Structure formats: structure tokens, C-alpha cells
């Protein structure tokens, strides 16, 4: 599985992308976030408040119960702030 991180999630985790082998019991977005958080360090601090974390699975926004699998590209990032001016 490819994991991508953007904005301050990227900064806190300390890298912009990584390949991971998913534990067999991690089958949803919510379980993936829990598992990443359990790695501690930057993961724990970046993911401590999930209300400001958005997840995309294969470039589409995904809810916590969305399935995840080994071939997926999963991105974690803060709510988007857009480019158009206010």
C-alpha cells in the first residue's frame, strides 16, 4: 500500500510518501488510522485529532468505514483550504 501525506500532516509525520505492508486485520480507513497512530512519534501527533484529518482512497474522499487493501493509494491530509480567494 502507498501512503501519501500532505501539508502539516506531511510535516509532522516527516515524509511525503511511504510503502507499507498492511497487517491483515487492518481493513478500513478507521483501522488504518488507529494502526498508524500506534506507531507513535510523528504519527501519533499528526493523527491525535481525527476531526482535522481527511482521507482519500485512490484519489477519492473516503469515510472511516471505507475498505482499504494492499493495492490502494491512501492519502492523509488536513481539510482543504482551496486556492480561490475568500
Amino acid at each position: 500500500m502507498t501512503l501519501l501525506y500532505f501539508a502539516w500532516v506531511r510535516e509532522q509525520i516527516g515524509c511525503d510518501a511511504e510503502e507499507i505492508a498492511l497487517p491483515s486485520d487492518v481493513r478500513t480507513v478507521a483501522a488504518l488510522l488507529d494502526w498508524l497512530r500506534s506507531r507513535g512519534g510523528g504519527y501519533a501527533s499528526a493523527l491525535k485529532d481525527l476531526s482535522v484529518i481527511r482521507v482519500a482512497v485512490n484519489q477519492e474522499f473516503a469515510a472511516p468505514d471505507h475498505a482499504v487493501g494492499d493495492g490502494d493509494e491512501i492519502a492523509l491530509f488536513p481539510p482543504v483550504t482551496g486556492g480561490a480567494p475568500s
Partner: protein
Amino acid sequence: MIRVQREDFDIGAEIEALSGGNNEVGAVASFVGITRADAGEGAPITAMTLEHYPAMTEKQLAAIEAEACERWNLTASLIVHRHGRLEPGDRIVLVVTAASHRRAALDACAFLIDWLKTKAPFWKREETAEGPRWVAARAADDQAAERWRDAS
């Protein structure tokens, strides 16, 4: 047509390329977003960096544009969105919509800008004299995009 690029764009040339030579076009609306020094909540910004998720940005912008083209029966449309580091006065985004009639062009242009503001996967990092800060999403922007749902 969508383009996400670091480079600046030429508004006149883009509008001409989109509308020229098509006798069905009677109305071309456009919108340009520009970096403002006082765009933030606190100290004036000296620069802003737009980060994005290229694969998702392309997919989402293409979907937004297709929705606008169908809903307002546009003859042509264009979104050019810059990423990277921008300073106050720099152009950020261009939306151009061409249609037979003015209402379609104007409404589609406003719709696309509201949508880009809230839904496109861009994140803004502002530089100020007090240090850099990531911009937080604002509820008012989600409401501006939502009103298009209510109107449909």
C-alpha cells in the same frame, strides 16, 4: 480544459483561445484570484505556498468542470490553477466559461470558483513576519459551495 501549473497565465490569451472562432459564443465570464497580503487572519503575509495532491486535483477539477459544462450547457470552459510559492499580487487561479447566454456563463463561473475554494485538494501555507502557518479551512466557504446544491 484544466491545467494545474507553477507558471503564471495570460488572461487575454486564454480567453481568446477559448472563445475565438466559435460563433455560438455570446458570453464569456472569467474570474482571476490574486494573492493578497491581508488574506490571512493575523500578520500580513509575505508569501503563500499552495501544496496539492496532483492525481486527485486533476480528477476533481475535471469532474467539477464536467458538471458545470453539463449543468449550464457551456460551449467551453477553462480552469488554470497555480501551485507552489506565490507572493502578494501574484495570480492564483483563472476560471473562464463561455456560453451562448450571459446568465449561464456568469453562474457557471461563480459555481466553479465556489467549488474550487472548498473542494479542490489544495493547502495553503502562509509566510508572515511571525513565521509560517498552515491555513485552516473555513466554514463560510463550505456554505458558499453548498448553496449551489440547494439551488439545483
